[in-house]
C-alpha cells in the first residue's frame, strides 16, 4: 500500500502538512477526501496554490478516495490521504480503503467533546469509532508533526 500517511485534521491542508509532513515523508500525491471541500471551488483553488506544483493534489468526495487512487494509478506513489474528522475517516475506510495507521493531527474542541491532549478533542462517537478501528488492527496515533513522539490515542482517554 502506498498510503504513507492517513491523517485526520480539522484544518486539512495547512502549514504543518505543507511544511512538515509532505517534505519529510517525501509525499508525491495528496488526496483530500472531503465532501465539503470537494464542493467549495474557492477553498480547492487556494489549496492548489498552497501545495507545490510537483505534488499531485486531488480533492474529492469522502467516499471517492479509493476510486481516485485507482483512477489516477496512485499505487506506487507516496500518498497522503487527508480527512476532516473521525466520522469522515470512518466513511472513507468503509468505502474500501486499507491502512495500518491513522494519524490524528488537529481535532478542535467543541461542545460535547473532551480535550484529551493539547491538539485532540473527542466525543463519545469519535471514541467508539476509534475503538472499532483498533479492533480492525489499525493503530491510532496522535502526532502533530513527524518529529513529535507518537502516542497511542486511546491511552489518553
Amino acid at each position, binding site marked *: 500500500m502506498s498510503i504513507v500517511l492517513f491523517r485526520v485534521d*480539522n*484544518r486539512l491542508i*495547512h*502549514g504543518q502538512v505543507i511544511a512538515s509532513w509532505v517534505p519529510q515523508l517525501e509525499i508525491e500525491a495528496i488526496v483530500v477526501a472531503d465532501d465539503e471541500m470537494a464542493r467549495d471551488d*474557492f*477553498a480547492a483553488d*487556494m489549496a492548489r496554490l498552497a501545495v507545490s506544483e510537483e505534488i499531485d493534489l486531488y480533492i474529492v468526495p469522502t467516499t471517492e478516495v479509493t476510486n481516485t487512487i485507482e483512477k489516477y494509478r496512485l499505487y506506487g506513489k507516496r500518498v497522503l490521504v487527508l480527512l476532516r474528522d473521525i466520522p469522515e475517516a470512518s466513511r472513507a475506510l468503509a468505502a474500501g480503503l486499507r491502512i495500518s495507521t491513522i494519524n490524528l493531527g*488537529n481535532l478542535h474542541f*467543541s461542545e460535547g467533546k473532551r480535550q484529551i491532549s493539547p491538539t485532540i478533542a473527542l466525543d463519545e462517537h469519535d471514541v467508539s469509532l476509534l475503538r472499532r478501528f483498533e479492533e480492525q488492527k489499525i493503530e491510532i496515533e496522535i502526532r502533530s508533526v513527524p518529529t513529535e513522539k507518537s502516542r497511542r490515542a486511546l491511552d489518553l482517554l
Partner: protein
Amino acid sequence: MVGIVIIAHGKYAEELIQTAQFIVGKIEQCVSVNVFANDGPEQIRKELQRALKDVDDGDGVLVLTDMFGGTPSNIALSFLMEGKVEVLTGSNIPMILKLATSRKEMPLKELAPFIKQYGQRNISLASEILNQRPGKEKK
C-alpha cells in the same frame, strides 16, 4: 483610511504590531488576531470578523498574514472582497512600518500591491549589499 488586521500563528501578529509601534508610535485602526494550535476554525473566523469590523471605516481593510497555506491565511482568504478586503501573506516589519506611514494617501487597491512590493524589496542579504558599494574592489 485603510484599516489593518494582522493574523498569524502564535503571538506573531501581536508582537509585529507591538514592535512596529515601538518604532513609529501608535498605529490607529490596527488590530492583531493570534492563532493558537488548539483554536478551532470557527472561533478564528469569528475573531477575524470582529477585527475587520473594528478597523474598517469604509475604506476597506488590508489583512496581513504570516504564511500562505497556513490556517490564519486560509481563514483570511475566505473574507477576500475586491476593494474591501485584501490579504497579503508573508508579512514583515518593513511592510508594517511602510503601511503605517503611507496608507493615508492610498486606496486599498493601490496600497496592497505597493506594500507587497515594498515588503519584497526590503529583504536584503548583507554580503550582497556590501559587495555593491561603489568603489569597492572584489577580493
